[in-house]
Every structure is written in C-alpha cells, then in structure tokens.
C-alpha cells in the first residue's frame, strides 16, 4: 500500500464546481451555484426551518494518533482518524454524521468537544476558536457543549446516585450568578431535568444499576441538559437500545431540541435513524468527509459511490421490496496507511465500471459542489453516477467473492 500523495487539503474548493465542462449532472441537472455551499438556503424550496447562521465551523481538522514502536517508543506512523475535514453546523440544526467503524466520525465529535487533542486545523464555535481554548476559558466553554455517550452503562459511574451524576457537572460549573454551589438549588434543578427527560424526580436517589438501558440513556441526557448547553454531541445515543426503546429516546431528543433550541452533531451508523432525525448529513470514509447534503437530497440522490453503496446495503423492512443490493468488495483499509489518490478507490465499484481511471489512484478528490442546495461530494466522477450504472454493477457483481487477497 502506498502512502498518500501530499495533495492539497480537502476544503470546499468551489472552483472545481464549474459544471460546464463536466458531463451533465444526473439527478437534477442544474448548474450548481457555488454560493450555496455555506449559505444555508434551502434546496428546492423545502422548508427546513434551519437558520442560515453557522454555530460551528470546522476547517481542515486533523486528529492523528501516533503509532509507537521499539524500545524508545518512537513514533513510526500515525493513525489518521480524522484527516482534513471541513464543514459547518448551523445553529438549531441536527447534523447527522454517518460512516462505518473506524471512519473517524466519533473522533471528529470528540475533538470538537475537546475530549481528544487535534493535530491541526481550526474549529470555531460561535466565533470562538475552540481548539486553542484552555484553562478557565475551556472550562467555561464546556458548559455550552455537552455530550451524550453511546454506552449508557459505561458512561455512568456505578457508585454514584443520579443526584451526584448530574450534580457533579453543576457543581463544577457553579458561579455566583447561577447559584449551583448551593445544594438545594442543585437538587431542584436535578429533579426538574429528570422530569424533563421523562423520569421521576425521586429517581435522583437511585443508582445506575436500578435503571433499564433506556432509562440510563435518559439520565445521560438529563446530565447533558442540566448545564443548559447550546450544542450537544450525541455519539451513537440509541445504538445500544432495542428498537421500541430507541424510538422513545429519538422522540425525546427531538422534543428537547425544540424546547431548548439545541444544535446537535448526531453520530450514528444506523442510516435509518440518521435519515429520520437529521436536517443535514455528512458521510465519512477513512478520516474524510466524502459527501454532505440536506438529508432528503442525500438519501434520494447520493452523489458519491460510497454513499450509494452504504444506502443500498441497508435491508428494507418491507418484504415487498426485496431489492438487489450493491455489494462492496473487501474491508475498510487501515487509517494508518490510507490508499493513494481517492481513499475509496480500492473498494469503489464506479472506479471498476469506468475502467479504472488513473485519476482515482493519483488525485485526492476535494469536496466540491455537485448539486445546488449545498450538496457536496468528493468524487472525480460524481457526474457519471446514475441509475443505469448502478443497475449495471448490480447485474454483473459476484455477491460471494467479495474479499481481497491476503496482503503480502
């Protein structure tokens, strides 16, 4: 496997968008207007209710983990968990981030809320540079950005009653103005927020093991909410829950977003959940954002071959559908040594269909406007994607021989 070429960073290169010289765009063949990329205007007049103002802007963010080896633990390489990601989250929206394990979606969120250290790049929250904050400035900021974790068991200390689990954060953020240093004020607040998430006030005396999985996740949500954050990073918040409980928690999150004017970064691997809850969606592959669009545009007309394959892979619960699925070959490559050129080319069905164009193996595609309404994709051949080429691929694929040979 070759190391990636030192190609430029994948910020939104709007110059690439000029569709005149490209083949006609497939799904909605209109000229992409470059100004849409960060504008926040709606596509096709569909009301999203999302205001145009950006709460968070992320530019060329990188988070690497060093690989150490040898007696002196020298750094011999890097796991490039997040490798040059740029996008913005608008105030009041739910931005869904999808991708398979190891694509960097969780690391990206954790870097934003300063639970991981970034390697380079920028992130601004409401105009403040997030990544250089430290000390009391960072502590003050933490109140504004909260996290809901995936594992409702692992993220709640089993030795603490709920009153301490929620109260701890309040105490840490206590100021003379909010008066949270006073136990009575805290207890009132803890009870209020337990009710807010559909639990009883007196549950504050209980310990985590006394709750079901869904109730524990509610405690985690109450803990995040009690600090009155503006932004919540929800990391796979319903993945550990059964479907009937999952829907209760999704309903709750949507209610709370309305009630408290919250902005969410919602990370999940379940594409149906993300489709249901998100306003806009980003798709990640191997540390990169490969597609960003309004949720309806992304699901109805994906413009990156990876997104096409992801969406095609989801089993449909309607037995009348029984569609043929597109089957990707191989596994996700190691983020320590991503493929050259486009990182997806080693598994890309479109690359195969187009006769393996050299450009895919040499040029790292930037995220560019491929459709109006701020639909971005990082694929050299996005314009070649259409139903016909998908059908052709599905008709000729071998669904059993889908592994790659052992690496030498």
């Amino acid at each position: 496997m070759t190391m990636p070429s030192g190609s430029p960073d994948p910020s939104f290169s709007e110059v690439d968008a000029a569709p005149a010289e490209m083949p006609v765009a497939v799904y909605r063949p209109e000229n992409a207007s470059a100004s849409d990329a960060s504008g926040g205007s709606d596509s096709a007049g569909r009301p999203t209710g999302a205001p145009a103002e950006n709460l968070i802007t992320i530019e060329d963010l990188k988070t690497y983990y060093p690989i150490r080896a040898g007696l002196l633990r020298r750094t011999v390489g890097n796991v490039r968990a997040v490798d040059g990601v740029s996008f913005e989250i608008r105030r009041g929206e739910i931005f869904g981030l999808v991708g398979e394990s190891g694509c960097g979606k969780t690391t990206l969120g954790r870097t934003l809320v300063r639970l991981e250290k970034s390697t380079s790049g920028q992130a601004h929250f409401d105009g403040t540079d997030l990544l250089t904050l430290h000390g009391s400035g960072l502590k003050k900021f933490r109140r504004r950005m909260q996290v809901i974790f995936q594992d409702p068991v692992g993220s709640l200390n089993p030795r603490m009653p709920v009153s301490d689990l929620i109260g701890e954060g309040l105490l840490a953020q206590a100021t003379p103005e909010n008066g949270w240093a006073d136990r009575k004020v805290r207890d009132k607040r803890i009870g209020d927020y337990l009710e807010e998430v559909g639990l009883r006030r007196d549950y504050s005396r209980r310990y985590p093991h006394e709750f079901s999985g869904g109730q524990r996740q509610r405690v985690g949500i109450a803990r995040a909410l009690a600090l009155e954050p503006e932004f919540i990073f929800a990391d796979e918040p319903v993945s550990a829950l059964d479907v009937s409980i999952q829907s209760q928690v999704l309903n709750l999150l949507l209610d709370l977003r309305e009630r408290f004017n919250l902005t969410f970064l919602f990370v999940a691997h379940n594409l149906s959940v993300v489709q249901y809850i998100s306003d806009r969606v980003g798709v990640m592959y191997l540390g990169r954002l490969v597609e960003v669009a309004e949720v309806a545009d992304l699901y109805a007309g994906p413009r990156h071959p990876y997104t096409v394959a992801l969406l095609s892979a989801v089993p449909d619960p309607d037995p009348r559908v029984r569609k043929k699925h597109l089957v990707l070959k191989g596994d996700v490559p190691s983020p320590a040594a991503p493929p050259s050129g486009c990182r997806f080319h080693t598994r890309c069905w479109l690359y195969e269909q187009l006769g393996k164009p050299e450009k895919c193996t040499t040029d790292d595609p930037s995220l560019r406007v491929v459709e109006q309404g701020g639909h971005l994709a990082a694929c050299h051949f996005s314009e070649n994607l259409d139903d016909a080429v998908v059908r052709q691929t599905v008709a000729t694929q071998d669904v059993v021989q889908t592994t790659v040979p052992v690496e030498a």
Partner: protein
Amino acid sequence: MTETAAVHDRRAGVGEVLLDVRDLKTYFHVMDGTVKAVDGVSFTLRKGGRLALVGESGCGKSVTALSIMRLIETPPGEFAGGEILFDGQDVLKLDDRAIRKVRGGEIAMIFQEPMTSLNPVMSVGDQIIEAVLLHQKVDKKGAHDIAVAALQDVGVADPKRRVKQYPHELSGGMRQRIMIAMALSCNPKLIIADEPTTALDVTIQRQILELIKTIQERTGAALLLITHDLGVVAETVDEVAVMYAGRVVETGTVEEVLLHPRMPYTRGLLESIPSQAKRGQRLSAIKGTVPNPFRMPSGCKFAPRCPYAWDICSESEPDLIQLGSERTARCWLNDPRYHDRLEAYEASRPGGHG
C-alpha cells in the same frame, strides 16, 4: 402446542418437517429465583426452509437457539418441558455422545461475535480441520482440502494462505466468513445463525447476508435466523416467529406478519422503525419496558404496554390462535368473540406500511 402440530401436513412447500419445537420450556435457576427465559415456545421448520425468530433483547430467542444445540448449561439451566424434534428424534433426550454428532455436524451454528467463538490460539485452518475430523471419516490431508474448499466457497480469496492465519489477524467480516465455512464444512441439514451480522458494519453486513442467502440456496440446508432486525428478516427468510417474554406471539409468512401484523407487539415494533416517511412526526414508540422476569404480569405478557388491551388481557393469557393454515397470533383480538375489536384495530392501522 397442539395447534402448531396440526399445521404441518397442510403446509405446502419446501419439504417435510425438519425441526419441530413443541412447547419448549428452558428455565434458569438463579439466586433471586427462576427466570423462565423460554416458556412454551413452539414452531416448525421444514427441510430447506427459512425461518426467523425475531424479538428484542431478553425475549428468549437466543436461549431457544442454544436449547436446540443443547448448549445450555444445566444447572443453572433446566429443560423444564417440551420437546425439540430434529429429523424425528428428540434432541433433549439424546445422550452426550449422540448430541455431539448432531451439534456441529447435522446442525451448525453461526454466532454473533465471531471473535469470541473462534479459538484465538489456533489457526483458522486447524479449527475447521478439527471440526471436519470430528464429523467426517477423512484423514488430515482430506480435512485440510475440505477446509480450503470451504473457505473458497464462502468467498475467501487466497484460501491457502488464509488457513494459516489466526483470528486476531482477520477483520470482523472475515472471521464471520470463517465461522460460516466451518459451519458448512460438515454439510449440515440445519444452519442456526444467531444475529450473524449484528456486530458488523453495514457494507460488511451486506456481504455476509448475501453470502448466507447464496449458501443457503446452494446447499439446501434449512436456515433458522435469530435476529432483532426486521429489515434482515424481510429479505432473508420466508417465515417468521415473533417472540416476546419467552413466548412465540405471532407466526406466519414474512409478508403476512410484516404487512398485516395481528399482534399489537409486532405492529409496535414495525412502527418504531424510523424512516424518511416518518420525518416530522413522532415515532410511535411502545410505551414502558419489557417485564421483569421475576414479576411477569398475569394474563397477556404484553398487556401492560399494549395500547389495545382491555380487561380480559390482564386476566387471562391467550393461546396462539390459529388464523389460517400458516398463521397464528397470541392475542385476544383474534378470538372470534372480539371481532368488533379486531375491526377497530385494523381500522386504526396507520399509514406507514400497506
């Protein structure tokens, strides 16, 4: 249960009955009392047929599968009643020697977490060879060839090098392929797949699902799929048994059960699935949680969470009511005496499906 027994002969289709689970009861005696994990489960699977056991965590679907393989430790487990007829013989009555011949030979199992079900200190080739030597009359060389061929069959590129690798060197999808190769190497009549794709990413899940479907059709083995994912059910099997609180609560063809559920729990599960069509509306969640196994409600176990329940539901538990030759549901709505209630239930059917 008698009503399921009566169904067999009338069913047209794949073949004669291969697996007939009758009123199975698997209990666990633990410190706090007895957990009736499986409490009267009945279903049948025909030769070459494909059936899914569906339900949420704790409904007893995995314990049912493990009971069929006799992989329940006793104690604390106990087979408290019922029978599991596999190819005419009761698995529960087999001695240890006989059950070992069936287990891994005639019935193969694919587990959810391939990492924990493969031996970490043995090469994958040796693990398949071990299974082959146990169940087939071949020498070491012959077993090796069977192992390589089995890997080839499950789409493993470069099988001669793969057999020398250890589980930790493989990806999750590759490990699951090894499990499937191992399951196939002994030409089983029945493959039990317990959440085979739950631990996998969506594109790898797709690879494994396609593989299982292709292999099942190619070998003609019957498939018992254990899953919580109704999407996987809809595209993989022909028949479904929905489980709740240790019981089968609805059975039928995939089309009948998923499009016209006659048990409110099944309907609730289907409506809970988020989708584009439901954007902007609240998801209709099933209220409450599954009952505590030590404090099972009297009457219908779903009644406390059921939006359609009335007096009788909390007083007395319904049997699996026969709705047609291939169709049962454990719900009073289907009793002819309450026909008007069934009509109201049908009329209240929201858009979504249908």
